[in-house]
């Protein structure tokens, strides 16, 4: 996180916000679960927390390629179903020693669609 805060003080060379991708109605994700989406050739797992908040992470576990969207979540973490590696939904960092997952900024728009902001800044959510 600290590296990203430094980035915020000076203009980043990476593009910060471009257009949002509309992934369809938010109701396709049940509360407390995740679903996988293909976006520009990248796989993104979008989670809908029980309070309605959305979170988005890359969908492939860096450990052994497990399907992150099939993981169990709470408000803070998602656990990969294959070997129970845990990742912060906010930062993508693993608390179990795995490589981090990419995070994406994601929101719900007025029409109750999922909007994924992309590209992203690695390791940070832009929300």
């Amino acid at each position, binding site marked *: 996180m600290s590296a990203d805060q430094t980035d915020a003080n000076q203009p980043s060379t990476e593009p910060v916000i471009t257009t949002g991708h509309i992934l369809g109605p938010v*109701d*396709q*994700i*049940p*509360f*407390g*679960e*995740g*679903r*996988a989406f*293909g976006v520009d050739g990248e*796989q993104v*797992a979008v989670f809908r927390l*029980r309070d309605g908040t959305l979170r988005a992470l890359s*969908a*492939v576990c860096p450990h*052994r*390629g*497990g*399907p*992150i*969207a*099939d*993981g*169990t*979540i*709470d*408000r*803070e*973490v*998602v*656990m990969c*179903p*294959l070997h129970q590696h*845990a990742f912060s939904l906010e930062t993508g960092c693993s608390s179990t020693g795995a490589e981090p997952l990419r995070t994406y900024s994601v929101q719900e728009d007025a029409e109750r669609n999922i909007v994924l902001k992309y590209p992203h800044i690695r390791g940070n959510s832009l929300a």
Partner: protein
Amino acid sequence: MTSVLDRPQGRHAGAAPRRRLLVVGNGMAGARAVEEILARGGAEQFTITMFGDEPYGNYNRIMLSHVLSGEESDADIFLNALPWYRENSITLHAGVRVDRIDKFTKHVFSNDGRVTPYDTLIIATGSRSHMPPMDGLYTPGGSVKHGVFGFRTIDDTRKMVQHAQQEHHRRAVVIGGGLLGLEAAYGLKSHGIDVEVVHSGGHLMNAQMGPDGGAVLRRSVEALGIRVHTSSRTTAVLGRDTVSGVSLRDREDIACDMVVVAAGIRPNVDVAVLSGLPVERAIVVDDRLRVQDEDDIYAVGECVQHRGEVYGLVAPLWEQAVVLANHVTGVDTSSAYLGSRTATKLKVAGVDVASMGLHGPEFDTDEHIVFSEPSRGIFKSIVVRDNKMVGATLLGDSRKVAYLTQAYDRGLPLPEERIALLFDVGGPGEAVGVAELDDGAQVCNCNGVSKGALVAAVKGGCTTVSGAMDATRAGKGCGSCKLLVKQVVEWAADGAVEEDPAASYYVPGIPLDKPALMAAIRKKGLRSVSQVFTALAPGSAEDAKSKMGLASLLKMMLADQYIDERDARFINDRVHANIQRDGTFSVVPQMKGGVTSVQQLRRIADVAEKHNVPLIKLTGGQRIDLLGIPKEDLPQVWADLDMPSGYAYGKSFRTVKTCVGKDFCRYGTGDSTKLGIEIESRFQGIESPAKLKLAVSGCPRNCAESLVKDVGVVAVEGGRWELYVGGAAGAHIRKGDLLATVDDPEEVKVLTGRFMQYYRENANWLERTYSFVPRLGIEHLRAVIVDDSEGIAATLDAAMQASVDSYVDPWSERDDPLTPGQFRTSLPLTVLPQVPVR
């Protein structure tokens, strides 16, 4: 012979040639000596070659008793597996025995015909089981009779387990009531074998304690169901080709199927004797661990005699290895080994035992402080001479061991009130005991962790006991030091030690054990996982790690009153299939009792063909597994199969394996197939804290392996059925305990259901029956389940019936997904490492 002599290998000009270090013996002493040498930069000085009689890396021999009792698997006890040797450039000749040493030309001769030169030699040949003279111990061919075992090596232990698990082997005699004998008896008992211990001494463990302590220990051992005969010598092993019993000197013969000889150990000195080295009771070494009058030969461990003492414990070996390494590497040539004061602290047959120095007073002026409480298995005895402690024995309560060991080792002044030696009477007590420990004092003898290392780990931020244990590996060996480790961590954290939540909580996110959690759920009328978090979790915080356990518990408690929130389920339970390494799923249709039909087989074949199923596999539970099904295809596969789920994915009742039964088998005595199908029909899909695998066998040949199932049923002659519980043959091997023998198959079903309900209500999350049954004890389970001692049988039966009644085949969700996108792919669309198609 000289023609095969290995020549010293050529060296780069200029580089000092490394000397050749050769180690005879690859046990705990040999490997520890090498570790100490490597720690002193030995890799730069030496090319190291080791010879080991056993064809393995080196393992923790102390843990063999845990392997025997099934608490550890044999893979868990390796200290250094084969890759360690490679990583440290050590040439290991495993399974090769050294026959002779030529100390003049400096070569060793091994039984593979090899002749290996050395510059420095270390002998660490250890000990072997002592076989006392008895008639009939050996066959005429000279080998030990079939069914007689020593208890020294991993092979001994494996053979014993194998023998004990054969169904017709039910009785064992252990010769020797010392530490090893009691461990053997305890281990065999856990395989369901009736064990009798024959001990020539007047009381058990007479090398470690006096008669009063021995009597208390005997009571504790007998309470485990192990019979004990003291002052009794075995004169003969009976049986022509295989053991049928033993004869005692002045008692009746004992019939048995196996004999374990644990009558002490003898140093392995054959090589030394043959090679002309000085041997008395063992190989004679000086204070530098050098063999007497030899400049380049050292010896270490149980094969040495130092100042007249031969040790059979692990602690002296560690001390010797340090001194030896100091000299061999030249790091500290003033280092000297002056002998060890042996204080032992161990767990024997589940009883804490600590012993040091004298067992009782020797002079009139010696003080003897004794406390004895046989009903609780507690005995404490301390001998004081000139205000110094000269001996102690503690049984059943080891809380004062750290302090007493220190007082004994260092001759500390003792409290005037002697009772304070035995108990913490007011005051800071234990903490003082730990505080007085020296930083260098070794707390964990298996992994060589000192108090200082533990304290450093705590100061470095490991403020839980398990955290400090993980960081230092303390307590990860035989486990006997765990209490002391806990005390040290608590002392080092100065009261700031964090409780280990996972230790007693049913699930990590709710700070309640199972009974309290169930009571709170009932009292507050909670019906869903999210309600439980809101009402009972700190800060009402959800916890991903707790969801699956709570979902299972609530379903068990509430049956059809449970509000099912799909996000609380593990993926397997959301889509009713078992996730595989590539993110596809396995589909196992129900095949009750492993019985199928032409129609089923044809349909399965058609489905497999239609869906291009990459792997069709017969499972251990007698079913057919279709592997590699993508999630989105699951509903179609189920529809095409049109068979109910076989539950091969959940923490639930899985399957009932059966044998052919009496209709076809010419040995069958009961209709096992029918009963197995009925049990599976009744209990299909029942949730439980961990999976339940059952079996029904039609005769004691046990073709369905009923003795190693969570619940196993065996038909015996006379139309009766034996019911075993708590068996396992997976990651862990355990023979089930006999719960009951009944006449009626209906009674089998009632007791099976009642046992499983009691397990569901009382087992910890993910605790298999092989842990649950020994934790509660078969006597207790029998009292509750068979004899209804607590008057809850009817309640258990009713609760199980409610669960049975609320069964719905989960594969019926195929036509009407319960959540949007329930079967939508989560597979990353990029190509993952593919499982090969066979």
